[in-house]
Structures are given as C-alpha cells and as structure tokens.
C-alpha cells in the first residue's frame, strides 16, 4: 500500500513537473515566414487549445537545435529530415510530424553567365552553406560526374552578386527572392530545383528525443497537430500572419520586409501542401531516398528504420 502511494506520488510529481515547466520548441532558423505555422499556432493559442504550455525558441546561424534537445534546453525541434537522420546516429531522435514535403533547395546561376545546364557547373565556383545543405548538391554532382569548387556562402548573397560565385545555393522561399529584391528579375536567373532532379528531400519536420516521446506521446502528437493547425490558419489568413511574422522578426532584430515574407509564405504554402491537404505524414519513398543518398554520401552509416523513426500517426 505504501509502495503504491509512493509510486502514485512520484507519478504525480513527474506529471506536475512536466506541466509546471513549459514545453519548448526550438526552430532551426531565425523567425520568418518559414515558421509562420508554429508562430501562428502559438499566437492563436492552438498549442494551448490542445492542453500544451509551449514556448517557441527562435533559432539562428549559431543555434544548433539537436544540441538544444540533447542538453534539455528544448523538448521539441524543427529540423530538415536529412539533418535529423544524420543526428539520429548520435542521439535517439524520433520524427513526430512532417511539415514541408518538398525540397525548396535550388541552385541559381546568373543568366549573364554561360551556365545553361547543370553540366555547365563543372569546374565552377558554387556557393554552398553548411554540410546539411551540401548533401543534395554533392549527390547531384556525383551523379553528373562533375567537380565544382565549393565556396561557403554568406546569407547576403553578396559574393554571388559581385561575380565571386558562378552559382549559388538558395532556398526557393528565401534567397531566391533576396536576389529578386536586389533587382534581378526571374528571367535574369537560371534556376535548378533539387525536387525536380530526383533529389527531393522533405525538409522542415518536427522531432524530439525518443525519451521525450515515450514519456508523453500524446503531448508530442499534440505539438505536431497544433503546428499543422497553425499552418492551415497561416495559409487562410496570410496578411494577419505576415503581421505576426514581421513583429516577431523585429523583436529579434532580424531584417524584415513584408514583400519578402509574403513571397516566403506563398512558397511555404507550395511546399507544405505540395499539391495536397495539410498533413504530417512522411512519405516512405522520400524517407528512403533521403537515407539512401545520405549513406551514399557518407553522412550516415546506419540510418534508422522508417518504422522505428517515424512516430506520427499514419492515416
């Protein structure tokens, strides 16, 4: 009897601790329309509506979200699928919901250059970000059998604009429009989308440690579901969403302009819906393509199995 009581008290204490301390969702980049769904879910109380006390921690160039999970600085995180698969070697991560189903990563060359096809990139200087963003390009170059000079690129795209790079990596929803905001027209640019090159990596998804999930699977599912509600709301109310996003950006002293965020939200709609309804399901085909290429590129040696990794409810 005393044992049972003690156990119950402990359980109560555990739950109490869990509900006393707010849950934290760390985003893998600075606040912007890329995260409009989560911001709107918080803003409109969709997390609270599902019984969650959740706080969003914005990311940035120097925030490592998996480190946040490992250190217990956050319970949930957004990550690219590829990043999550890589990290799962070192830490026991689970996938609790897929938000972005299409890859927005692209390579952009100037129309003024003589680059017209991917083969023309051979021997050129190509701007890339950190390792996570190099997997698809490197797999592509390997497939094409070309060598390129990789230059790590800064977010400003300035080096590309000044002719210091022949091609540059860009996210469709972000840097592609940054180039447009520098006065380039879409016709001034040659664009290659990885999603069209049999290299579609589903991007932003929701993750947590397996221990977090197992402690409270319902909460994890609620986080994913409320985030999806936030996205649906954001697409239905773009102007209100832009107001919120711009406010958040200004609070974090991030360069913010409405036209850019409007473009980003519209493109997010394209890649989140990807021609369907809002959904959390991770396509097995996409998952397997991603793990295959990660292994091929040496980014993962023993990737998790789909069934063990993917926790979101299957429809």
């Amino acid at each position, binding site marked *: 009897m005393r044992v049972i009581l003690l156990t119950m008290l402990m359980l109560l204490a555990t739950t109490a601790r869990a509900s006393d301390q707010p849950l934290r969702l760390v985003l893998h980049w600075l606040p912007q329309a890329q995260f409009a769904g989560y911001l709107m879910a918080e803003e409109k109380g969709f997390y609270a509506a599902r019984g969650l006390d959740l706080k969003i921690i914005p990311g940035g160039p*120097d925030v490592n979200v998996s480190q946040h999970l490992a250190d217990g600085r956050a319970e949930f995180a957004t990550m690219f699928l590829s990043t999550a698969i890589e990290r799962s070697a070192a830490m026991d991560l689970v996938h609790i919901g897929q938000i972005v189903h299409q890859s927005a990563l692209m390579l952009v060359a100037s129309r003024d250059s003589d680059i017209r096809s991917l083969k023309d990139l051979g021997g050129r200087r190509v701007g890339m970000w950190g390792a996570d963003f190099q997997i698809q390009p490197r797999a592509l170059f390997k497939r094409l059998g070309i060598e390129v000079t990789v*230059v*790590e*690129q*800064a977010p*400003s795209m*300035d*080096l590309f*604009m*000044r*002719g*210091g790079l022949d091609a540059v990596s860009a996210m469709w929803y972000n840097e592609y429009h940054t180039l*447009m*905001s*520098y*006065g380039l027209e879409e016709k001034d640019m040659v664009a290659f989308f990885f999603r069209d090159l049999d290299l579609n990596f589903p991007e932003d998804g929701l993750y947590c440690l397996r221990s977090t999930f197992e402690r409270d699977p319902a909460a994890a599912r609620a986080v994913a579901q409320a985030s999806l509600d936030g996205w649906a709301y954001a697409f239905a109310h773009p102007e209100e969403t832009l107001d919120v996003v711009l406010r958040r950006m200004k609070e974090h*002293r991030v*360069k*913010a*302009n*409405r*036209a*850019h965020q*409007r473009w980003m939200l519209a493109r997010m709609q394209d890649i989140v819906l990807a021609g369907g309804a809002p959904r959390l399901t991770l396509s097995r085909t996409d998952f397997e393509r991603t793990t295959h290429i990660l292994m091929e590129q040496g980014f993962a040696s023993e990737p998790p199995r789909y069934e063990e990794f993917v926790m979101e409810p299957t429809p």
Partner: protein
Amino acid sequence: MRLSIGARLSALTLACVTLILAMVVGYAYVVSRDTIVELARKNGTAVAQGTASRINAQFQATAKVTETVAATLEDADLSKRFLSDLGRRVLFSNPGIFGTAVAFEPQAFERGTKYFAPYSYRRNYAITSVNLGGDDYNYFTKDWYQLARELNRPVWTEPYYDDGGGDTLMITYSAPFSRRTPRGLQPAGVVTADIDLAWLQRTISSVSVSASGYVFLLSRYGAYIAHPDPALIMNETIFTHAEDLNLPSLRDLGKEMVAGRAGFVEFSDLPGVGAAYVAYQPLPDERWSLAVVLPKDELLAGANRVTRIMTGIGLAGFVLLAGVILAVSGTITRPLRILTRAAGGIAAGNLDQPMPAIAPGDEVGDLAASFTSMKEALRRHIADLTTATAARERIESELRIARDIQMSILPKIFPPFPDRAELDVYASIVPAREVGGDLYDFFFADEHRFCFLIGDVSGKGVPAAFFMAVTKTLIKAVAEREKAPGRILSKVNDELAADNDSCMFVTLFLAILDTRTGRLEFGNAGHNAPLLLRRGRPPEWIGSLEEPMAGAMPDIDYTTGALDLAPGDTLFLTTDGVGEAMNPTLELYTDDRLLETVSAHANAGAQDMLRAVSASVTDWAGGAEQSDDITMLAVRYLGPAPQ
C-alpha cells in the same frame, strides 16, 4: 432652341472671353511650372551631387586609410600589441571611422589559431578592443571578410548589423592583405574599416530639401541605407518596397539608380508625398545611389497660387463682363421688344394704338420711325380702300338696276301673240355678268307685217345698254313708217350716227314677214347670218349681205333682200355670243356645232329648238364664265291665217 439676341450675344462674347482667359491662365501656368520644374531639377541635382560628394569624401578617406594599413602589413613585424596599437591609432586619427579590424586567415597569424581578428571600435566615447571570431562568430563567411578575400580586391560591403563586436548598423571597407613568406606573398587576411550608418543617416537627414522633401540613399542592391522612414532601413530594398506598394515605377527608378545612372524623374504618386520629382545621383565608388525627393505640391505651390489668383480675377472679370453685356444688350433689345409688341397690335388690326416713343438717333430709332410711317400709310390706305369699295358697290348696284331696266324693255312674254296662228315665235337672252348690248325685238308693224330683229351693240357697260335701248326704240319708230327693211336700217343708221360722238355701233339683222304670203324681206347691218330651216332641206345660212354695221357713219344704203317662206319654215337668229361661247379649255362652240344642233331639232317648235340650242351651249360651256350675252330668236312661219 430659340435664343434672344441678348443671350446669344452674351454667350458668344463670354465663350470667347473664357477661351482667351483659359489660354492666358494655362499658358502662364505652364510657363511658370516649367520654370519651377527646371529650377527643381537643377536644385535637386545640386543637392544630390553635394551630398554624394560629402559622403564620398568620407568614404575615400576611409578607403585610403584601410589600403595603407593593408600595404603596411605585408612586411611588418606582427605582434598582438602592434596590431592593437595600430587599430587605436587608426581610430584616433580618423574620427569618421567607427571600427577597424585586421582579420587573419586560419593559422595565418600563428599556428593553432583558427580565428584571429583584433578589432578596435568606439564605444561610449572610448576605444575598445576585442578579438573577433569563434564558433558563434565565424567571420570567414561574413561578407566583410569573405568578399575581399574571395574577390581579392578591396570592397565596400553592403550595410549590415554587426553582432560580432560593433553591435551597430555599419558598412565596412575591406582590403585583402598578403604576407611575405618563404613561399612568396600569401593571402593572409583582410583589413577593415567600418563606418557607422548612424553617421551617414545624420548626414543625409541634415540635408534640407523642402518642408516635406527628403533624401534617401540606396546600397548597390537597392537596400535603403538612409530614409526618413526608419522602418525601411535595412529591412527593405527599393525593389521589395515597390513590390509591397505595387508601384512598378519605383522599381524602375530602383533599376536606374542601382545601374549607377543619374537622372530626374516625375512620380505621379509616391507614398507619403504624392506627386513628386526625384533627382538621383550615383556614388560611383560604392555603387550606391542617392536620391532627392521634391514634392510637386510644394514646388508648384507658388505657381498654383498665381494660377488660382489669375483664375479668380478672370472669374470676377467674367461676371462683370456678363453683367455689362446683359445690360447693353437689354438697352438694344428692349425697344425692339416694345416695337414687336406694337407690330403685333398692328397685325391684329389695331391701327389706332399709339406707337411707342423711342428716341431717334440709332438703327432702332430709325426702325421705330419706319414703323410709325408704315402704320400711318396703312391706315390711309385702308380708309381709301373703304371709300373705294363703297363707291364700287354703289356703281355695281346701279348697273344691276340698269341691266334690269335694259332686260325689261325686251319682250318676254311667250307666246307674244296668242291670237295669231300664223307664227310661232320664241326668244331668249342670257346676259353675261357685265352689262352687254344684245337686243332682239318683234312686233306687228301693221295687220300683216310681222317685224323681227336681233342685234349686238359694240362694247359693254352702261353706254352699250343705252345705245341698245336707243336702237330698239328707233327701230320700232322707223319700222312703223318705212316698209323695206333696208330702208329702215338706213334710217336707223342715220339717226344713230348723227350724234354718235363715242363712235358706238350696232350690228342688226331685221326682217319683215308678210303673214299672208310668207314673203320675207330682210336687211343686215353687219350681223352674223341667221339659219333658215326649210321643211325637207338642210339648214342654210341666209342673208349675209356683207353690209356695214349701223351707227358708225351716216348715209349708208342698206339693201333689202327677200325670200319666200313656206309654212313650217323656221328662221333661227343668234348673236355671236352663241358661236363664241367657250368651254373651260377656251374652245369655241362654233357655228358648225350650232348648225348641227339646230338641224337635229329642225321639226321642233320655236321654243323647243331654242331651248335645245341653249342646253347644248350651256353643256359646252360646262361652268366656264360666260363672256358675252347669248341671245337667240326663233321665228317659225305656220302659214296664212285661215279666213
């Protein structure tokens, strides 16, 4: 639409005046506007150039310092202390520079050191030094480092918020430097000098343009570096701004400015300003661009005011002129209206009304005078006409009486001699509207001698009527004394001609029938021949003796012709009014037609024959006006009276 003269005159004159006024005001506005715009273009360009060159001076000084430092580093003996002092010295002697760094390539300063970048900057009026770089601040991919390093030439970065050391909005001039090593010159890092954007913004906001005019500065990619709206700075490029405002003309301006061109353009609607002129000027070294915005309203305020005043004066003049024209046209047209009313009265027959008193001396006065004399003339004429009409009516009445009297002297009672079986006599006269001079008569000169005659006096009217009456009376008087018709005619002729000053004459056919024997004697003074109808023979014209008519001259011997009538023979006498009766198409009845009609009734009695001829003539005339008397006399000899 009917418009009065006054209204037409006013409308035309005022339309011309308005047109002239509009042209004058429009021309004045266009000229003054063009002058002002030209001044604004010059002024705006001058402001843009002045501001650009002030900024450029600072930039060039900064660039010069940076490049000098970069050159020194090639051979200098580098220590941490040397580099720290270098930074402080640069800041000390260059108040325009916010911070300066010497950033090394990994391992370039010393083995084992990935990040080495001593950075000195101003903070709270003092110079602070830090070492940049670390896992949280990987400067190798920062534009201020990477651009100069990768392009291997000095560059101005785009404005950025530096969170590594300066914690402020800045732009940086970066120059790569190399170090002499045993393997030759090797790239070793970059030297930087920062300019605090706040300084730039102060410089630009201190440029006074006009009350709501302003200056803005764009980076090489069109990012707002300085603008009165702080929300735009660093957040928007001119292209996203244009996209957000849906203002393609702003995007075009951005393209021009980013392309490094200078110019002057007009905007119909710039947010917060409205219509405006923009003068823009490049800062070639950094490929930045500066623009001066001049609100059109403010520029043109003077011209607009002058135009408003001119329009006001014009409107007042217009109203004044309209009043004057209406008054003048009123003085001209009022007498006309009065005259019109008076003329209306005249037309209605009121000739006794007084004519309005209108002062003579102009055209309207003349018109009024003419109206007055016209009215007088009209009244006189009408009075005359009234008198004349009365006179004519009296004469006509008298003529009618004369005619009645004339007609009454012809025998009208048939049968005239009911107790005489030897004869069947019938006569008729259809007088024309005018009094004519036809006559007929028959009487017994004695027991057995039956005298009958027909005649036609020349001319018409009362003289002809008198002459006819005289002729008839004379014949009757003479026939009682003379036996032979020729003699009778000669006597009558002499009597008539005796006092015939008016030279009237008469044609006469006169015959005397002895009722016992049927012997007919006749004379003819110029009358048309009678028709003789004998039993069983075609009618024949008889007795045209071709002797002159009576009364014109005396002493004419008329012959006496003779023939014998058998019982049943008829003599048919007419005046020329029968043969000359006309139908409406002015065709004559002719003697041939007369002959025909008479032949058709050869066996009828005198009355029937005569009525048949009369009906035939009336039929022929068919309503045409009768121009002459139509007179007929038929005498049928029935044989001697039984004893």
